[in-house]
């Protein structure tokens, strides 16, 4: 019986398999975000710090990561680390390493921007009130920087989720690969399946990222400093 292929999406375990595939790339994204937030905060502090060498080194790091396509970084770690250092990482581990390197650079820049966007008079006023440096950081700089940082970090998470779709290219079986398997396995019964299955993957990504970026926009509006 000729069919369009949309029912293939819900046949057997196909839909739950797609969701599991989604979870693979989201898991990589969340894990990388977690590491990136910790390391990126450190990097951001160094970029704003007093050490010239630290600033220069972090700058070079940021520029290199920024200028390379994430896919190239992925290839470097996945293919070359095995060959040069003899370290054989699974696709998923290599992905977490690469996206942590990438996320740390992006996060570092966000932290740097959030701190340096606090106007100088805030520091002066705090000192004029007799605050110590520690009190100044704790009560003046931190609350304001965090308010700026949180929406940006949420937004970086959607970018991370979108970027982790690249792991399909180093053989990690995530949602796109699962979609490919479903289509290939049903090539003869459902010749038109590619449209619906890839369409479904498109909308699943859209829903996930849209919800997160809508949340980020709400935070941004709510916490906008007047």
């Amino acid at each position, binding site marked *: 019986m000729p069919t369009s*292929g949309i029912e293939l999406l819900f046949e057997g375990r196909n839909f739950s398999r797609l969701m599991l595939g989604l979870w693979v790339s989201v898991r990589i994204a969340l894990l990388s975000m977690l590491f990136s937030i910790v390391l990126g905060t450190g990097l951001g502090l160094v970029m704003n710090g007093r050490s010239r060498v630290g600033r220069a080194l972090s700058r070079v790091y940021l*520029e290199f990561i920024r*200028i*390379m*396509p*994430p*896919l*190239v970084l992925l*290839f*470097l770690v996945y*293919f*070359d680390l*095995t*060959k*040069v250092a003899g370290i054989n990482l699974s696709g998923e581990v290599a992905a977490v390493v690469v996206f942590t390197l990438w996320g740390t650079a992006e996060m570092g820049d966000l932290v740097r921007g959030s701190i340096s966007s606090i106007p100088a008079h805030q520091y002066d006023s705090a000192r004029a009130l007799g605050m110590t440096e520690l009190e100044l950081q704790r009560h003046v700089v931190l609350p304001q920087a965090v308010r700026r940082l949180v929406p940006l970090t949420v937004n970086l998470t*959607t970018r991370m989720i*979108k*970027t982790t*779709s*690249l792991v*399909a*290219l180093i053989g990690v079986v995530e949602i*796109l690969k699962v*979609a490919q398997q479903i*289509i290939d396995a049903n090539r003869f019964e459902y*010749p*038109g*399946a*590619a*449209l*619906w*299955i*890839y*369409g479904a*993957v*498109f909308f699943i*990504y*859209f829903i996930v*990222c*849209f919800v997160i*970026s809508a949340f980020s926009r709400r935070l941004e509006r709510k916490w906008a400093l007047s």
Partner: protein
Amino acid sequence: MDFGFIRESIPLYGEAALLTVRIGAVGIVLSLLVGLVCAAIQFFRIPLLRQLVAAYVELSRNTPLLVQLFFLYFGLPKTGVVMSSELCAIVGLTFLGGSYMAEAFRSSLEAIDSIQFQSALSLGMTRGQALGHVMLPQSLALAMPALTANVIFLLKETSVMSVIALPDLVYVAKEQIGNTYNTSEALVLLVSFYLLILLPISLGARYLERRVRYANFGD
């Protein structure tokens, strides 16, 4: 490191790099056009079209290019829309880039005081003239950092085009790794060629941003 192998492979990568630049350039120019049209629709608040643009921007910004390409290249042919991989790459890049450019134009237009637009209208300009001659030139200076960031972003995004059988830099590198096992050499070439493309553009972008940063229009 086999330098003979690297030397022999340079023309191969040069050709692939040209393809990347060509696809990127066409995609970026089309993205700018789509972005301008979308921003104009939103600026004039044209009903219906405005909602369509908003939906397009959300769809395009919240999905990865890789997934967009899979849909365009493997999904759409089932409805009879068949594209060559080069055309598909350009369409995909424009679909993605159009929304990023639209957002850059839109937010910079919003940053220009509306009194500028009203003054232009009261001088007898049409709404189109007011946008083209008064609003856009001013907003361009504000939009420049976002626009150049988008250009670099889009060029980087072209790296996934090998999945739709486009023989770009990544494609050539992957083939060499598979065929010759000269992994390190292939990757050194890959990184070098991306640097060769992106470094001058990144430096040029920074120069351009500095040039327009202090642009003031009769303020």
